[in-house]
């Protein structure tokens, strides 16, 4: 039976050698390598639930009056898009489950990518010969943030509308070209023409997903061609030999377990834990907004950036060179992503290490890299926390304005401090290990001498 199947495939495709190689590909046996896999499986859930949602979503901002089953909104004017999402959440069977699972999957997808990035960064997995794999990964993170933001915006509830106009304003703030670019994209000033919504829709359900899917394919192919990196083994230095569990039979059930586990948890979350209850927000109109609004967490760093910038537009006479939102909304993420893209080259330049590396370093093995990474993470995290100052004000009644004043200083001081501490901790850890090692060796020698 198995023989017949294998023969069937081989005689028609001549791929048996490739299949055999694939089945015996070696996966390093360490949990941190599963983070990227979780992202992949969350992406599969996103595509599956997303396809289902497209059957019910209407990509139109045409004004309609709501007559559905949700009483508080009955008789209200809203866009057809928002009404269709209300319907998905109320009248379409299993619609709410799929919608909430889609949203949860988006959160898990981004979180998994970011954790995967941390693993890759702090262990030096991006070094030669895997620079391209890393750059593609960073690009995927960027596209993912855009994709998630556009998906959030498509719903056209009050919060998503506020998010969209902020995005528009950040686009508008790009020096020299912002006004023209947004006028082009939205077909005139915000909220633009009716043609804008289908544009956003196509981007969300076709352009960005296809882009992510293609990048993902190349990312995985390149990983397979170059093989996974691995941690140093205690028994042998393994810069030239990959050690691991083959795809089949060892790795396959593990990966399937992870796939089904990720999907299972996402559907449990989608069914049991409410997320983005859009019927509570109400429809968006440009003249409406609500207090205490926060974006999804993966954009929290940007709202923090926007809120921290002091009240300045850079002007030359009557010409506004840099409108304010540029700093927090565009320059800040550009610096962060610019850093991510350039770091491997910067590191090579400073350390003079142009060698091939298949072996990973532990964070402590490279104190400088760890310090820089911790500094960057702290910086972004602090801006993120600053973005939630209004919540802190509500919970703890600490004055919002003084919080912001303090953060304006802290975001430049604390990251340096954190980097210095991280550097020191790494050195101490390595020194401690050396002491331990010397101790063990001395003991062993003593034992040897006694006998």
């Amino acid at each position, binding site marked *: 039976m198995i023989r017949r199947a294998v023969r069937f495939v081989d005689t028609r495709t001549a791929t048996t050698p490739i299949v055999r190689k694939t089945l015996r590909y070696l996966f390093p046996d360490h949990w941190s390598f599963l983070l990227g896999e979780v992202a992949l499986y969350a992406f599969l859930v996103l595509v599956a639930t997303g396809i289902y949602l497209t059957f019910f979503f209407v990509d139109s901002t045409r004004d309609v009056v709501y007559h559905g089953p949700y009483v508080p909104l009955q008789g209200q004017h809203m866009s057809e898009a928002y009404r269709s999402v209300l319907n998905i959440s109320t009248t379409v069977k299993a619609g709410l489950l799929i919608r909430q699972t889609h949203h949860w999957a988006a959160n898990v997808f981004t979180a998994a990518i970011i954790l995967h990035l941390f693993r890759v960064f702090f262990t030096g997995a991006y070094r030669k010969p895997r620079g391209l794999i890393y750059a593609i990964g960073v690009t995927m993170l960027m596209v993912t943030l855009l994709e998630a933001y556009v998906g959030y915006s498509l719903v056209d509830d009050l919060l998503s509308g506020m998010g969209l106009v902020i995005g528009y304003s950040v686009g508008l703030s790009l020096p020299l070209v912002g*006004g023209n670019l947004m006028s082009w994209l939205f077909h005139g000033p915000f909220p633009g023409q009716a043609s804008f919504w289908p544009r956003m829709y196509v981007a969300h359900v076709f352009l960005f997903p296809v882009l992510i899917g293609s990048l993902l394919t190349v990312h995985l192919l390149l990983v397979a061609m170059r093989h996974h990196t691995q941690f140093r083994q205690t028994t042998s230095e393994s810069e030239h030999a990959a050690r691991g569990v083959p795809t089949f039979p060892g790795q396959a059930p593990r990966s399937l377990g992870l796939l089904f586990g990720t999907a*299972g948890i996402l559907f449990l979350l989608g069914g049991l834990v409410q997320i983005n209850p859009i019927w509570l927000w109400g429809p968006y109109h440009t003249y409406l907004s609500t207090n205490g609004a926060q974006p999804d967490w993966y954009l929290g760093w940007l709202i923090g950036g926007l809120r921290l910038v002091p*009240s300045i537009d850079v002007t030359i006479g009557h010409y506004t060179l840099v409108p304010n939102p540029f700093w927090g909304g565009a320059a800040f993420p550009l610096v962060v992503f610019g850093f991510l893209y350039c770091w491997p080259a910067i590191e090579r330049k400073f350390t003079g290490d142009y060698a091939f590396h298949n072996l990973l370093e532990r964070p402590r093995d490279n104190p400088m890299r760890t310090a820089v990474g911790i500094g960057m993470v702290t910086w972004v995290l602090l801006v993120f926390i600053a973005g939630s100052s209004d919540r802190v004000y509500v919970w703890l009644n600490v004055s919002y304005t003084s919080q912001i004043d303090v953060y304006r200083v802290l975001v430049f001081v604390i990251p340096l401090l954190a980097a210095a501490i991280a550097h020191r901790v790494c050195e101490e850890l390595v020194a401690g290990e050396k002491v331990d090692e010397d101790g063990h060796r001395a003991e062993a020698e003593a034992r040897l001498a006694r006998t």
Partner: protein
Amino acid sequence: MSRARAFVVSSIVLLLGRGRRRPPRQAERVLPELPPDPGAETVVLALLFAAALFAAGFIVVYAVDSLPDHTQLLGAALGLSLLCIAAAMIIVAKRLIVTEELVEPYPPEEHPGEQELIVQLVAESGDRITRRRLFKLGLGAAGGTLGLAALAPALSFGPLFQTKYFRGTPWRKGTRLVDESSRPYRASDIEENDFYTAFPEGTSLAAREDLGAPIVLVRLPKSLLKLPPELAGFDAEGIVAYSKICTHAGCAISTYRAPLFQPDEPRPALVCPCHYSTFDPADGGSVTFGPAGRRLPMLPLSIDSKGFLRAKGNFDDEVGPTWWGTRIWRPQP
């Protein structure tokens, strides 16, 4: 005789050999051999049947409308079904299959021979071309221009070079101010310590979405009002009107901090809830806190003989989030 003997011998051989089959010749095992684990097998089977049961439960819940908490039940059924399969797979991985740790050489850093071959291949393929630089120029020109041609239709998206649309607002001299249900505001409707949203009279619902349409109205005590000289006379008996759209990132300004106990409380403030840009309505909308880089555009007001509020002209500055042209032009009707 010999036939009989042959018959007897062969019969014995057949009888004794019955059931004792020679094991079929087997190739050497690829995987190491491990003993079975019936316990783990039972658990995996139980998990797989549980998964099937939960999946069936999902279908039942889906079909039966009368069940309460539909979403929760659906999610639990599907989620648990998937998790059962996940658990089964993990037990399979840990207990029922061989997990070998193998070692394999990494691919070589480079393939110099192959590289050389490709270099030669490309170089030699162009042997017959004599005007190389011109050739490259031609290819570049064709490719580049074709690329531009392919991009050109994207200009149909919207007016890339036409920025006049940013400058228009629906406000005209004499336009009455109406509320959300299109009822005109009288000056007497506007009370202190409260906050009103107004639109130009006669605009459609769609036109109210334009950033130039919505304004906020507050009435301030004369003692507080200190408009800068260039905005003198923009208020109507202490009623001031500003664009409702924040000059920072375009959100609607929907919070008003009215000073209830003068002079202990801070000055009145219009606050945008997105990034907490704070504007002083008594001071011509100047920025007192937050990221906004310029003050709120003000709409001059008058009160007609019947007591209705009317615009006395257009905003004094461009409405909406700031871009490169903001300070160059004034709003035009």
